[in-house]
Protein backbone atom coordinates (compact mmCIF):
# COMPACT_ATOMS: atom_id res chain seq x y z
CA UNK A 1 0.00 0.00 0.00
CA UNK A 2 1.24 3.50 -0.74
CA UNK A 3 2.29 5.46 2.32
CA UNK A 4 2.22 9.19 2.90
CA UNK A 5 4.45 10.63 5.60
CA UNK A 6 2.94 13.82 6.94
CA UNK A 7 5.16 16.16 8.91
CA UNK A 8 3.40 19.02 10.65
CA UNK A 9 4.73 22.54 11.17
CA UNK A 10 6.17 21.52 14.56
CA UNK A 11 8.00 18.56 13.08
CA UNK A 12 5.77 15.75 14.33
CA UNK A 13 5.50 12.97 11.77
CA UNK A 14 2.63 10.63 11.11
CA UNK A 15 2.64 7.88 8.53
CA UNK A 16 -0.64 7.03 6.87
CA UNK A 17 -1.29 4.15 4.52
CA UNK A 18 -3.65 4.93 1.69
CA UNK A 19 -5.28 3.34 -1.31
CA UNK A 20 -3.92 3.70 -4.82
CA UNK A 21 -6.05 6.22 -6.67
CA UNK A 22 -7.04 8.19 -3.59
CA UNK A 23 -5.63 11.66 -3.25
CA UNK A 24 -3.16 12.68 -0.56
CA UNK A 25 -5.87 15.03 0.72
CA UNK A 26 -8.48 12.25 1.01
CA UNK A 27 -5.98 10.02 2.75
CA UNK A 28 -5.22 12.75 5.27
CA UNK A 29 -8.81 13.79 5.95
CA UNK A 30 -10.19 10.30 6.32
CA UNK A 31 -7.59 9.57 8.95
CA UNK A 32 -7.92 12.88 10.72
CA UNK A 33 -4.46 14.21 9.94
CA UNK A 34 -4.42 17.74 11.34
CA UNK A 35 -3.09 20.44 9.06
CA UNK A 36 -5.24 19.47 6.09
CA UNK A 37 -8.62 21.20 6.05
CA UNK A 38 -9.91 20.60 2.50
CA UNK A 39 -13.17 22.49 2.79
CA UNK A 40 -14.18 21.88 -0.82
CA UNK A 41 -13.59 18.16 -0.63
CA UNK A 42 -11.14 18.08 -3.51
CA UNK A 43 -12.88 20.10 -6.19
CA UNK A 44 -10.04 22.59 -6.46
CA UNK A 45 -12.00 25.46 -4.99
CA UNK A 46 -10.56 26.34 -1.60
CA UNK A 47 -6.75 25.97 -1.34
CA UNK A 48 -6.98 24.60 2.21
CA UNK A 49 -5.12 21.33 1.55
CA UNK A 50 -1.78 22.98 0.77
CA UNK A 51 1.33 20.86 1.36
CA UNK A 52 5.05 21.25 0.83
CA UNK A 53 6.40 18.21 -1.00
CA UNK A 54 9.88 16.89 -0.20
CA UNK A 55 12.14 17.75 -3.13
CA UNK A 56 12.95 14.18 -4.12
CA UNK A 57 9.24 13.34 -4.35
CA UNK A 58 8.31 16.16 -6.70
CA UNK A 59 9.21 14.27 -9.84
CA UNK A 60 6.87 11.41 -8.89
CA UNK A 61 3.87 13.75 -9.03
CA UNK A 62 1.59 14.70 -11.87
CA UNK A 63 2.35 18.13 -13.36
CA UNK A 64 0.45 21.10 -12.05
CA UNK A 65 -2.51 22.47 -13.99
CA UNK A 66 -3.16 26.19 -14.33
CA UNK A 67 -6.06 26.21 -11.87
CA UNK A 68 -4.00 24.57 -9.13
CA UNK A 69 -1.16 26.97 -9.86
CA UNK A 70 -3.48 29.97 -9.47
CA UNK A 71 -5.13 28.61 -6.34
CA UNK A 72 -1.72 28.20 -4.74
CA UNK A 73 -1.27 31.96 -4.80
CA UNK A 74 -4.13 32.21 -2.32
CA UNK A 75 -2.96 29.80 0.35
CA UNK A 76 -2.89 30.93 3.98
CA UNK A 77 0.85 30.28 4.27
CA UNK A 78 2.73 31.59 1.22
CA UNK A 79 3.57 29.07 -1.46
CA UNK A 80 7.08 27.79 -2.07
CA UNK A 81 8.58 26.11 -5.10
CA UNK A 82 7.61 22.73 -3.68
CA UNK A 83 4.00 23.67 -2.89
CA UNK A 84 1.10 21.57 -4.17
CA UNK A 85 -2.56 21.17 -3.36
CA UNK A 86 -2.82 17.68 -1.93
CA UNK A 87 -6.24 17.09 -3.51
CA UNK A 88 -4.49 16.96 -6.87
CA UNK A 89 -1.93 14.30 -5.83
CA UNK A 90 -3.08 10.73 -6.40
CA UNK A 91 -1.44 7.82 -4.63
CA UNK A 92 0.32 5.23 -6.74
CA UNK A 93 1.17 1.75 -5.51
CA UNK A 94 4.62 1.30 -3.97
CA UNK A 95 5.26 5.03 -3.97
CA UNK A 96 6.06 6.78 -0.72
CA UNK A 97 5.40 10.48 -0.44
CA UNK A 98 6.84 12.87 2.12
CA UNK A 99 4.93 16.10 2.66
CA UNK A 100 4.91 18.85 5.26
CA UNK A 101 1.73 20.64 6.24
CA UNK A 102 1.82 24.41 6.74
CA UNK A 103 1.23 26.14 10.07
CA UNK A 104 -2.29 27.09 9.05
CA UNK A 105 -4.63 26.51 6.12
CA UNK A 106 -7.17 29.28 6.66
Amino acid at each position, binding site marked *: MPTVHFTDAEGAV*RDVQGNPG*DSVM*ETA*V*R*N*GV*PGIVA*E*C*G*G*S*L*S*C*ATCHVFVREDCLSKLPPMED*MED*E*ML*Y*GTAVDREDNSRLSCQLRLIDEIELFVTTPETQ*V
Partner: protein
Amino acid sequence: MGTHVAAAEQTSAGTAGAAGTETDSPTRTGLLIIGASQSGVQLAVSLRALGFDEHITLLGDEDHRPYQRPALSKEFLQGTVESESLIFRSNEYWADHNVGLVKGEYIVRIDKDPDGSGVAHSSSGRQFPFKRLALTVGARARKLEVDGGDLDGVLYLRNADDALALKARVGDAQDVVVIGGGFIGLEAASSLQKMGKNVTVLEFGPRLVGRAVGEETAEYFLQAHRARGLDIRLNTSAKRFTAKTAAGEKQTAVAGVELQDGTVLPAQIVLVGIGVIPNTQLAEQLGLTVDNGIVVDRFALASDGTTVAIGDCANMPNPVPGSEPGERIRLESVNNAIEHAKVAAYSLTGRREEYAGIPWFWSNQADLKLQIAGLCNGYDQTVLRRDEDRGKFSVIYYRKGQVIAADCVNAPLDFMAVKNALAKGQNIPAGAAADPATPLKTITTDS
Protein backbone atom coordinates in the same frame (compact mmCIF):
# COMPACT_ATOMS: atom_id res chain seq x y z
CA MET B 1 -3.36 9.34 17.29
CA GLY B 2 -4.91 10.71 20.45
CA THR B 3 -7.26 8.50 22.33
CA HIS B 4 -10.32 9.72 24.10
CA VAL B 5 -11.73 7.74 26.94
CA ALA B 6 -15.44 7.82 27.43
CA ALA B 7 -16.34 9.71 30.55
CA ALA B 8 -19.33 7.60 31.43
CA GLU B 9 -20.16 9.47 34.55
CA GLN B 10 -23.68 9.95 35.70
CA THR B 11 -24.27 13.64 35.82
CA SER B 12 -27.87 14.61 35.40
CA ALA B 13 -30.47 14.39 38.07
CA GLY B 14 -33.74 12.62 37.58
CA THR B 15 -32.51 9.55 35.77
CA ALA B 16 -33.02 6.15 37.25
CA GLY B 17 -30.34 3.54 37.64
CA ALA B 18 -26.61 3.72 37.94
CA ALA B 19 -24.24 4.36 35.07
CA GLY B 20 -23.73 1.32 32.95
CA THR B 21 -26.92 -0.49 33.90
CA GLU B 22 -29.80 -1.11 31.55
CA THR B 23 -32.91 0.75 32.61
CA ASP B 24 -35.93 2.28 30.97
CA SER B 25 -34.45 5.71 31.68
CA PRO B 26 -30.91 5.38 30.44
CA THR B 27 -28.26 7.61 31.89
CA ARG B 28 -28.06 10.92 30.21
CA THR B 29 -24.45 11.48 29.31
CA GLY B 30 -22.51 12.88 26.43
CA LEU B 31 -23.52 14.81 23.36
CA LEU B 32 -26.11 13.69 20.86
CA ILE B 33 -25.70 15.20 17.40
CA ILE B 34 -28.81 14.72 15.29
CA GLY B 35 -27.78 14.95 11.65
CA ALA B 36 -24.63 13.30 10.30
CA SER B 37 -23.76 15.53 7.40
CA GLN B 38 -21.18 18.29 6.97
CA SER B 39 -21.99 20.33 10.09
CA GLY B 40 -22.60 17.35 12.37
CA VAL B 41 -19.35 15.70 11.31
CA GLN B 42 -17.41 18.94 11.75
CA LEU B 43 -18.90 19.48 15.19
CA ALA B 44 -17.70 16.06 16.35
CA VAL B 45 -14.26 16.60 14.82
CA SER B 46 -13.88 20.11 16.26
CA LEU B 47 -14.96 18.99 19.72
CA ARG B 48 -12.30 16.29 19.79
CA ALA B 49 -9.71 18.81 18.60
CA LEU B 50 -10.70 21.02 21.54
CA GLY B 51 -10.30 18.19 24.01
CA PHE B 52 -13.99 17.50 24.65
CA ASP B 53 -13.78 14.10 26.31
CA GLU B 54 -17.36 12.97 26.73
CA HIS B 55 -18.97 10.43 24.47
CA ILE B 56 -20.40 11.76 21.21
CA THR B 57 -23.21 10.07 19.30
CA LEU B 58 -23.44 11.16 15.68
CA LEU B 59 -26.83 10.10 14.40
CA GLY B 60 -28.12 10.28 10.84
CA ASP B 61 -31.30 9.06 9.18
CA GLU B 62 -29.56 7.81 6.05
CA ASP B 63 -28.12 4.33 5.67
CA HIS B 64 -24.79 5.68 4.49
CA ARG B 65 -21.71 6.61 6.47
CA PRO B 66 -21.39 10.42 6.59
CA TYR B 67 -20.42 11.70 3.16
CA GLN B 68 -19.81 14.91 1.30
CA ARG B 69 -22.68 16.23 -0.76
CA PRO B 70 -21.30 18.75 -3.26
CA ALA B 71 -20.09 16.12 -5.72
CA LEU B 72 -23.55 14.52 -5.98
CA SER B 73 -24.66 16.95 -8.70
CA LYS B 74 -21.30 16.94 -10.44
CA GLU B 75 -18.48 14.40 -10.29
CA PHE B 76 -20.54 11.65 -8.63
CA LEU B 77 -23.39 12.01 -11.11
CA GLN B 78 -20.94 11.90 -14.01
CA GLY B 79 -19.17 8.89 -12.56
CA THR B 80 -15.76 10.50 -12.16
CA VAL B 81 -15.87 10.13 -8.38
CA GLU B 82 -16.93 6.99 -6.53
CA SER B 83 -19.12 6.96 -3.47
CA GLU B 84 -16.29 5.64 -1.29
CA SER B 85 -14.21 8.75 -1.84
CA LEU B 86 -17.07 10.93 -0.60
CA ILE B 87 -16.89 9.35 2.88
CA PHE B 88 -15.72 11.94 5.40
CA ARG B 89 -13.80 9.79 7.86
CA SER B 90 -12.72 6.18 8.12
CA ASN B 91 -14.49 3.88 10.58
CA GLU B 92 -11.23 3.71 12.50
CA TYR B 93 -11.27 7.48 12.96
CA TRP B 94 -14.67 7.40 14.62
CA ALA B 95 -13.71 4.45 16.80
CA ASP B 96 -10.40 6.03 17.82
CA HIS B 97 -12.15 9.27 18.71
CA ASN B 98 -14.98 7.72 20.72
CA VAL B 99 -17.70 8.87 18.37
CA GLY B 100 -20.61 6.48 18.08
CA LEU B 101 -21.97 6.50 14.58
CA VAL B 102 -25.68 5.68 14.26
CA LYS B 103 -27.08 5.26 10.76
CA GLY B 104 -30.65 4.97 9.53
CA GLU B 105 -32.42 6.22 12.64
CA TYR B 106 -35.00 8.94 12.26
CA ILE B 107 -35.71 10.94 15.40
CA VAL B 108 -39.40 11.68 15.83
CA ARG B 109 -39.57 13.10 19.35
CA ILE B 110 -37.29 14.52 22.00
CA ASP B 111 -37.97 14.79 25.72
CA LYS B 112 -35.77 17.43 27.26
CA ASP B 113 -35.36 18.95 30.70
CA PRO B 114 -34.46 22.57 31.40
CA ASP B 115 -30.86 21.55 32.21
CA GLY B 116 -30.41 20.60 28.55
CA SER B 117 -30.36 16.83 29.03
CA GLY B 118 -32.95 14.50 27.62
CA VAL B 119 -33.83 11.49 25.50
CA ALA B 120 -34.43 11.36 21.76
CA HIS B 121 -36.82 8.73 20.41
CA SER B 122 -36.48 7.28 16.93
CA SER B 123 -39.19 5.96 14.63
CA SER B 124 -37.90 2.44 15.18
CA GLY B 125 -38.38 2.80 18.93
CA ARG B 126 -34.79 3.29 20.00
CA GLN B 127 -33.87 5.80 22.67
CA PHE B 128 -30.83 8.05 22.60
CA PRO B 129 -30.17 9.74 25.93
CA PHE B 130 -27.98 12.82 26.09
CA LYS B 131 -26.63 15.45 28.40
CA ARG B 132 -26.34 17.99 25.61
CA LEU B 133 -28.08 18.15 22.26
CA ALA B 134 -26.97 19.45 18.86
CA LEU B 135 -29.36 19.83 15.95
CA THR B 136 -27.55 19.63 12.63
CA VAL B 137 -30.64 18.54 10.78
CA GLY B 138 -30.12 20.43 7.53
CA ALA B 139 -32.80 21.11 5.01
CA ARG B 140 -35.00 19.14 2.65
CA ALA B 141 -35.80 19.73 -1.00
CA ARG B 142 -38.78 21.97 -1.66
CA LYS B 143 -41.44 19.98 -3.49
CA LEU B 144 -43.07 21.18 -6.66
CA GLU B 145 -46.84 20.89 -6.31
CA VAL B 146 -48.18 20.31 -9.81
CA ASP B 147 -50.29 17.64 -11.47
CA GLY B 148 -48.09 14.66 -12.19
CA GLY B 149 -45.57 15.64 -9.53
CA ASP B 150 -45.63 12.12 -8.12
CA LEU B 151 -45.00 10.36 -11.44
CA ASP B 152 -42.12 7.97 -11.71
CA GLY B 153 -39.10 9.85 -13.05
CA VAL B 154 -39.81 13.13 -11.25
CA LEU B 155 -36.72 13.42 -9.09
CA TYR B 156 -35.02 15.66 -6.56
CA LEU B 157 -31.34 15.90 -5.69
CA ARG B 158 -30.51 16.39 -2.06
CA ASN B 159 -28.81 13.25 -0.80
CA ALA B 160 -26.89 10.20 -1.94
CA ASP B 161 -30.01 8.10 -2.49
CA ASP B 162 -31.45 10.84 -4.70
CA ALA B 163 -28.22 10.88 -6.70
CA LEU B 164 -28.22 7.09 -7.03
CA ALA B 165 -31.86 7.14 -8.20
CA LEU B 166 -31.04 9.77 -10.79
CA LYS B 167 -27.94 7.92 -11.91
CA ALA B 168 -29.88 4.69 -12.30
CA ARG B 169 -32.29 6.34 -14.75
CA VAL B 170 -29.90 8.41 -16.76
CA GLY B 171 -28.97 5.56 -19.09
CA ASP B 172 -32.47 5.17 -20.49
CA ALA B 173 -33.27 8.85 -20.79
CA GLN B 174 -32.67 11.09 -23.76
CA ASP B 175 -34.59 14.18 -22.69
CA VAL B 176 -34.27 15.80 -19.29
CA VAL B 177 -36.12 18.83 -18.00
CA VAL B 178 -34.54 20.55 -15.03
CA ILE B 179 -36.87 22.78 -13.07
CA GLY B 180 -35.03 25.56 -11.29
CA GLY B 181 -32.07 27.62 -12.47
CA GLY B 182 -30.24 27.74 -9.15
CA PHE B 183 -26.90 26.13 -8.31
CA ILE B 184 -28.19 22.57 -8.00
CA GLY B 185 -30.29 22.82 -11.14
CA LEU B 186 -27.48 24.27 -13.23
CA GLU B 187 -24.83 21.91 -11.88
CA ALA B 188 -27.01 18.88 -12.58
CA ALA B 189 -28.09 20.25 -15.97
CA SER B 190 -24.45 20.75 -16.98
CA SER B 191 -23.54 17.27 -15.80
CA LEU B 192 -26.44 15.65 -17.64
CA GLN B 193 -25.67 17.60 -20.78
CA LYS B 194 -22.08 16.41 -20.59
CA MET B 195 -23.45 12.87 -20.36
CA GLY B 196 -25.13 13.37 -23.72
CA LYS B 197 -28.64 14.22 -22.62
CA ASN B 198 -30.89 16.78 -24.24
CA VAL B 199 -31.41 19.15 -21.31
CA THR B 200 -33.83 22.03 -20.88
CA VAL B 201 -33.75 24.26 -17.80
CA LEU B 202 -36.92 26.04 -16.74
CA GLU B 203 -36.49 29.03 -14.46
CA PHE B 204 -39.54 30.68 -12.97
CA GLY B 205 -37.75 33.99 -12.29
CA PRO B 206 -36.37 36.57 -14.71
CA ARG B 207 -32.76 35.45 -14.18
CA LEU B 208 -30.64 32.54 -13.05
CA VAL B 209 -29.34 31.77 -9.56
CA GLY B 210 -31.83 33.97 -7.69
CA ARG B 211 -30.24 36.28 -5.17
CA ALA B 212 -27.07 34.26 -4.56
CA VAL B 213 -25.17 36.26 -7.17
CA GLY B 214 -25.54 39.71 -8.70
CA GLU B 215 -27.22 40.63 -11.98
CA GLU B 216 -24.01 40.62 -14.04
CA THR B 217 -22.98 37.17 -12.86
CA ALA B 218 -26.44 35.75 -13.52
CA GLU B 219 -26.33 37.17 -17.05
CA TYR B 220 -22.82 35.80 -17.58
CA PHE B 221 -23.97 32.30 -16.66
CA LEU B 222 -27.04 32.58 -18.86
CA GLN B 223 -24.95 33.49 -21.91
CA ALA B 224 -22.21 30.99 -21.11
CA HIS B 225 -24.62 28.07 -20.70
CA ARG B 226 -26.57 28.98 -23.82
CA ALA B 227 -23.31 29.21 -25.76
CA ARG B 228 -22.56 25.66 -24.58
CA GLY B 229 -25.88 24.45 -25.93
CA LEU B 230 -28.02 24.34 -22.81
CA ASP B 231 -31.64 25.31 -23.49
CA ILE B 232 -32.51 27.73 -20.68
CA ARG B 233 -35.95 29.30 -20.51
CA LEU B 234 -36.47 32.16 -18.09
CA ASN B 235 -39.85 33.35 -16.77
CA THR B 236 -41.17 29.88 -17.46
CA SER B 237 -42.88 27.37 -15.23
CA ALA B 238 -44.32 23.92 -15.52
CA LYS B 239 -48.09 23.59 -15.51
CA ARG B 240 -48.13 19.83 -15.18
CA PHE B 241 -46.16 16.70 -15.90
CA THR B 242 -47.59 14.33 -18.47
CA ALA B 243 -47.39 10.55 -18.52
CA LYS B 244 -47.07 8.02 -21.29
CA THR B 245 -50.35 7.41 -23.09
CA ALA B 246 -49.95 3.87 -24.31
CA ALA B 247 -53.37 2.21 -24.40
CA GLY B 248 -54.14 -0.14 -21.57
CA GLU B 249 -50.94 0.51 -19.66
CA LYS B 250 -50.80 2.04 -16.24
CA GLN B 251 -49.49 5.54 -16.72
CA THR B 252 -46.92 5.97 -14.04
CA ALA B 253 -43.79 7.24 -15.74
CA VAL B 254 -43.27 10.85 -16.66
CA ALA B 255 -43.11 11.54 -20.39
CA GLY B 256 -43.22 15.28 -20.68
CA VAL B 257 -43.54 18.70 -19.10
CA GLU B 258 -46.39 20.96 -20.13
CA LEU B 259 -45.57 24.65 -19.83
CA GLN B 260 -48.03 27.42 -19.01
CA ASP B 261 -48.33 28.33 -22.69
CA GLY B 262 -49.30 24.78 -23.62
CA THR B 263 -45.93 23.73 -25.03
CA VAL B 264 -45.02 20.17 -24.08
CA LEU B 265 -41.34 19.28 -23.70
CA PRO B 266 -40.52 15.57 -23.85
CA ALA B 267 -38.85 14.34 -20.66
CA GLN B 268 -38.03 10.87 -19.38
CA ILE B 269 -36.50 12.56 -16.34
CA VAL B 270 -37.71 15.70 -14.60
CA LEU B 271 -35.27 16.97 -12.02
CA VAL B 272 -36.68 19.52 -9.61
CA GLY B 273 -34.24 21.90 -7.91
CA ILE B 274 -36.26 24.77 -6.52
CA GLY B 275 -34.58 25.32 -3.20
CA VAL B 276 -34.80 23.80 0.25
CA ILE B 277 -36.79 24.12 3.44
CA PRO B 278 -34.92 23.99 6.76
CA ASN B 279 -35.81 21.02 8.93
CA THR B 280 -37.31 22.62 12.01
CA GLN B 281 -39.82 19.97 13.10
CA LEU B 282 -37.77 18.77 16.07
CA ALA B 283 -36.98 22.32 17.16
CA GLU B 284 -40.67 23.19 17.04
CA GLN B 285 -41.56 20.11 19.03
CA LEU B 286 -38.97 21.19 21.60
CA GLY B 287 -40.52 24.65 21.77
CA LEU B 288 -37.44 26.40 20.39
CA THR B 289 -37.85 29.67 18.53
CA VAL B 290 -38.11 29.02 14.80
CA ASP B 291 -38.19 31.60 12.02
CA ASN B 292 -36.82 30.51 8.64
CA GLY B 293 -34.68 28.00 10.50
CA ILE B 294 -33.84 27.41 14.12
CA VAL B 295 -33.07 30.80 15.65
CA VAL B 296 -29.66 30.83 17.34
CA ASP B 297 -27.45 33.48 18.93
CA ARG B 298 -23.85 34.36 18.00
CA PHE B 299 -22.67 31.28 19.85
CA ALA B 300 -24.93 28.85 17.99
CA LEU B 301 -27.21 28.42 20.99
CA ALA B 302 -30.95 28.03 20.40
CA SER B 303 -33.56 29.91 22.44
CA ASP B 304 -33.41 27.41 25.33
CA GLY B 305 -29.79 28.42 25.92
CA THR B 306 -28.47 24.84 25.86
CA THR B 307 -29.25 23.22 22.51
CA VAL B 308 -26.92 24.11 19.67
CA ALA B 309 -28.20 24.32 16.10
CA ILE B 310 -25.84 24.83 13.17
CA GLY B 311 -25.55 24.74 9.41
CA ASP B 312 -28.36 24.87 6.87
CA CYS B 313 -31.05 24.52 9.54
CA ALA B 314 -29.97 27.52 11.61
CA ASN B 315 -30.98 31.17 11.38
CA MET B 316 -28.09 33.12 12.88
CA PRO B 317 -26.87 36.68 13.30
CA ASN B 318 -25.09 37.69 10.09
CA PRO B 319 -21.45 36.80 10.85
CA VAL B 320 -19.90 39.08 8.23
CA PRO B 321 -17.88 41.93 9.78
CA GLY B 322 -19.66 45.25 9.31
CA SER B 323 -23.14 43.78 8.82
CA GLU B 324 -26.15 45.65 10.18
CA PRO B 325 -26.90 45.08 13.87
CA GLY B 326 -29.72 42.61 14.28
CA GLU B 327 -29.41 41.35 10.70
CA ARG B 328 -30.07 37.61 10.57
CA ILE B 329 -29.27 35.08 7.93
CA ARG B 330 -29.52 31.42 7.06
CA LEU B 331 -26.59 30.20 4.98
CA GLU B 332 -26.68 27.05 2.89
CA SER B 333 -23.07 26.17 2.24
CA VAL B 334 -20.28 23.78 3.12
CA ASN B 335 -18.17 26.62 4.44
CA ASN B 336 -20.91 27.78 6.78
CA ALA B 337 -21.53 24.25 8.01
CA ILE B 338 -17.87 24.07 8.97
CA GLU B 339 -17.43 27.52 10.51
CA HIS B 340 -20.72 27.37 12.37
CA ALA B 341 -19.78 23.97 13.77
CA LYS B 342 -16.56 25.44 15.15
CA VAL B 343 -18.54 28.15 16.94
CA ALA B 344 -20.82 25.50 18.44
CA ALA B 345 -17.86 23.38 19.50
CA TYR B 346 -16.51 26.31 21.51
CA SER B 347 -19.91 26.84 23.13
CA LEU B 348 -20.15 23.19 24.11
CA THR B 349 -16.74 23.33 25.75
CA GLY B 350 -17.64 26.41 27.76
CA ARG B 351 -15.96 29.03 25.60
CA ARG B 352 -17.43 31.99 23.78
CA GLU B 353 -15.98 32.45 20.32
CA GLU B 354 -17.73 34.18 17.48
CA TYR B 355 -17.74 33.13 13.85
CA ALA B 356 -14.26 33.67 12.46
CA GLY B 357 -14.44 33.08 8.73
CA ILE B 358 -15.74 34.95 5.72
CA PRO B 359 -18.60 33.05 4.07
CA TRP B 360 -17.71 31.60 0.72
CA PHE B 361 -19.34 29.34 -1.84
CA TRP B 362 -18.46 27.49 -4.99
CA SER B 363 -20.30 25.93 -7.87
CA ASN B 364 -18.80 23.98 -10.77
CA GLN B 365 -20.90 24.01 -13.94
CA ALA B 366 -19.47 22.59 -17.16
CA ASP B 367 -16.04 24.27 -17.46
CA LEU B 368 -17.19 27.22 -15.34
CA LYS B 369 -15.84 27.39 -11.81
CA LEU B 370 -17.74 29.94 -9.78
CA GLN B 371 -16.24 31.02 -6.46
CA ILE B 372 -18.03 33.54 -4.30
CA ALA B 373 -16.36 35.36 -1.40
CA GLY B 374 -18.48 37.27 1.11
CA LEU B 375 -22.14 38.19 0.76
CA CYS B 376 -23.22 40.79 -1.77
CA ASN B 377 -26.29 41.94 0.21
CA GLY B 378 -26.70 45.71 0.19
CA TYR B 379 -24.04 46.58 -2.39
CA ASP B 380 -24.13 50.05 -3.99
CA GLN B 381 -21.37 49.62 -6.58
CA THR B 382 -19.93 46.83 -8.70
CA VAL B 383 -16.68 46.57 -10.60
CA LEU B 384 -16.44 44.15 -13.52
CA ARG B 385 -13.18 42.41 -14.40
CA ARG B 386 -13.40 40.49 -17.63
CA ASP B 387 -10.68 38.72 -19.57
CA GLU B 388 -12.44 37.25 -22.60
CA ASP B 389 -9.36 35.53 -23.96
CA ARG B 390 -8.75 33.52 -20.83
CA GLY B 391 -12.43 33.02 -19.99
CA LYS B 392 -12.13 34.87 -16.69
CA PHE B 393 -14.89 36.98 -15.24
CA SER B 394 -15.24 38.63 -11.84
CA VAL B 395 -17.65 41.05 -10.24
CA ILE B 396 -16.46 42.87 -7.13
CA TYR B 397 -19.14 44.32 -4.85
CA TYR B 398 -18.77 47.47 -2.79
CA ARG B 399 -20.78 49.18 -0.08
CA LYS B 400 -19.80 52.80 0.61
CA GLY B 401 -16.46 52.24 -1.07
CA GLN B 402 -15.58 49.14 0.96
CA VAL B 403 -15.30 45.77 -0.79
CA ILE B 404 -17.90 43.33 0.61
CA ALA B 405 -17.97 40.41 -1.83
CA ALA B 406 -16.93 38.99 -5.19
CA ASP B 407 -18.31 36.53 -7.73
CA CYS B 408 -15.40 35.01 -9.64
CA VAL B 409 -15.63 32.69 -12.64
CA ASN B 410 -12.46 30.78 -13.53
CA ALA B 411 -10.61 33.50 -11.65
CA PRO B 412 -9.23 31.98 -8.44
CA LEU B 413 -6.68 34.76 -8.00
CA ASP B 414 -9.47 37.34 -7.76
CA PHE B 415 -11.43 35.10 -5.43
CA MET B 416 -8.51 34.50 -3.12
CA ALA B 417 -7.55 38.17 -3.06
CA VAL B 418 -11.04 39.30 -2.08
CA LYS B 419 -11.54 36.49 0.43
CA ASN B 420 -8.22 37.29 2.11
CA ALA B 421 -8.88 41.04 2.09
CA LEU B 422 -12.28 40.52 3.74
CA ALA B 423 -10.77 38.22 6.36
CA LYS B 424 -8.13 40.83 7.22
CA GLY B 425 -10.55 43.77 7.14
CA GLN B 426 -8.75 45.29 4.17
CA ASN B 427 -10.08 47.06 1.09
CA ILE B 428 -9.48 46.82 -2.66
CA PRO B 429 -10.08 50.26 -4.18
CA ALA B 430 -12.71 50.10 -6.90
CA GLY B 431 -10.88 52.39 -9.34
CA ALA B 432 -7.74 50.30 -9.51
CA ALA B 433 -9.68 47.02 -9.45
CA ALA B 434 -11.37 47.87 -12.75
CA ASP B 435 -8.25 46.94 -14.73
CA PRO B 436 -8.42 43.16 -15.16
CA ALA B 437 -4.69 43.02 -15.83
CA THR B 438 -3.89 44.30 -12.32
CA PRO B 439 -3.68 41.51 -9.72
CA LEU B 440 -6.04 42.46 -6.89
CA LYS B 441 -3.50 41.25 -4.36
CA THR B 442 -1.17 44.08 -5.40
CA ILE B 443 -3.70 46.87 -4.78
CA THR B 444 -5.15 45.63 -1.49
CA THR B 445 -5.01 48.35 1.16
CA ASP B 446 -5.54 48.56 4.88
CA SER B 447 -8.90 50.23 5.28
